[in-house]
């Protein structure tokens, strides 16, 4: 049952993406001052947004665990965090490639970039914390608490850095604000977002199952060692 659900979601996501690729390269014209490379936005942005959705979904599952003490929720929370982290890395990489081509540099201390980096670091800490705790109950609880702190923090980070950097704006922003896209050009972004959400969900389901099995094995081992 769940097997087929996963496959279904993944398949759907795949087909949407393929269709998008077609429209992107066949229908959508090059952007005037960036040329072909601008198409990277069709992945860059959806990945970014999808990652945010994932991080916050993870937090809510964490809260859910704290309330319900149901380890399934912890598994889901962890899976969300991981998948989102993967997505975020893609955003990062696509972004950096894009930056290398458009700005000629890999990285600029632009507000959005910086805050995104912070966001990634917060979750890097989240994973390290999970790995550092052996007792599954403790792990679930602490990582839930951490994700709550992290998500609240991300909001503040986003705002504060926005203000901080704009005190002395870099060359970056001018390019960014050229983002008033023609609707035809913008549509694929949302389609890709949809595709990524589907894909993400299926990945989460897979990871969740792995997490459950891991916990099961862990408990069996403890039991075996008890005798």
């Amino acid at each position, binding site marked *: 049952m769940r097997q087929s659900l996963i496959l279904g979601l993944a398949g759907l996501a795949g087909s949407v993406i393929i269709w998008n690729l077609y429209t992107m390269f066949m229908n959508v014209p090059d952007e005037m001052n960036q040329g072909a490379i601008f198409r990277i936005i069709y992945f860059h942005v959806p990945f970014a947004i999808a990652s945010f959705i994932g991080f916050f979904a993870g937090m809510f599952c964490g809260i859910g665990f704290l309330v319900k003490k149901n380890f399934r929720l912890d598994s889901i929370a962890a899976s969300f965090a991981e998948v989102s982290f993967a997505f975020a890395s893609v955003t990062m990489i696509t972004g950096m490639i894009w930056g290398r081509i458009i700005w000629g540099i890999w990285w600029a201390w632009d507000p959005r970039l910086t805050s995104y980096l912070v966001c990634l670091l917060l979750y890097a800490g989240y994973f*390290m914390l999970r790995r550092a705790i052996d007792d599954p109950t403790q792990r679930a609880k602490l990582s839930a608490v951490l994700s709550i702190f992290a998500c609240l923090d991300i909001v503040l980070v986003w705002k504060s850095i926005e203000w901080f950097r704009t005190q002395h704006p870099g060359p970056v922003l001018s390019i960014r604000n050229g983002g008033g896209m023609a609707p035809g050009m913008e549509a694929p972004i949302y389609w890709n977002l949809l595709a990524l959400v589907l894909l993400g969900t299926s990945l989460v389901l897979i990871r969740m199952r792995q997490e459950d099995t891991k916990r099961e094995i862990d408990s069996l081992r403890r039991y075996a060692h008890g005798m």
Partner: protein
Amino acid sequence: MANRAGFIHQVLTIAGKDLRSELRTKETINASVSFSVVMLLLFSFAVDPGAEEVLQIAAGLLWLVFAFASALVLNRSFARELSNDCLDALLSSPAESAEIYFGKCLTNFVLLLMVELVSIPVFGLFYNVFLPAGWPLLIAVLLLGTWALTAIGTMFSAMTVNLRLRELMLPILVYPMMIPALIAAIRLTTVVLLGEPLGENWIWFKLLIVFDVIFTLLAFALVDVVLVG
């Protein structure tokens, strides 16, 4: 939750205990003071203190020093309870998790302020920055910023107390968290040092306060979950 009076009383008892044993073996305070002095020294080699624009970055360096020195204090905060399972003894007493947390916060707050009081003059010497006109504001910023470090740091000190890699995890988890507070503190301090008008920088002040309030409340709400397994 014990009644209000009881709450404060317990908090003070715990803070008093920590401060006493800390001030007896000046362990942590020595460590973090000497640490921050050394950091200032190193910075002064990294960044030519003679340069004009030093005032621009002075605030940044200062707060980095505070942030790093605080790690030492925060690490010990709950670690101190580990030696003889003292944490269990505290938790099994009528003291609430929240009371323990705020007791620790208070201690750390005081200790951090001590560290800062020592390192600020040193800083002034190295970088010949002198007490600016807007020093009352500066003090306000110091208090708010330090509380930000304390509130979050103490909470995470509690979270990581039972980990194998305590002294490792704490900085990694805490520093990214602190960034908004640090940014705000840095900007405000710069403003004061440069003697600029506060003007639209009020927003940073607000941010700092919001940060303090949010995370204090959050810690208050979650600390019991963290401490009681």
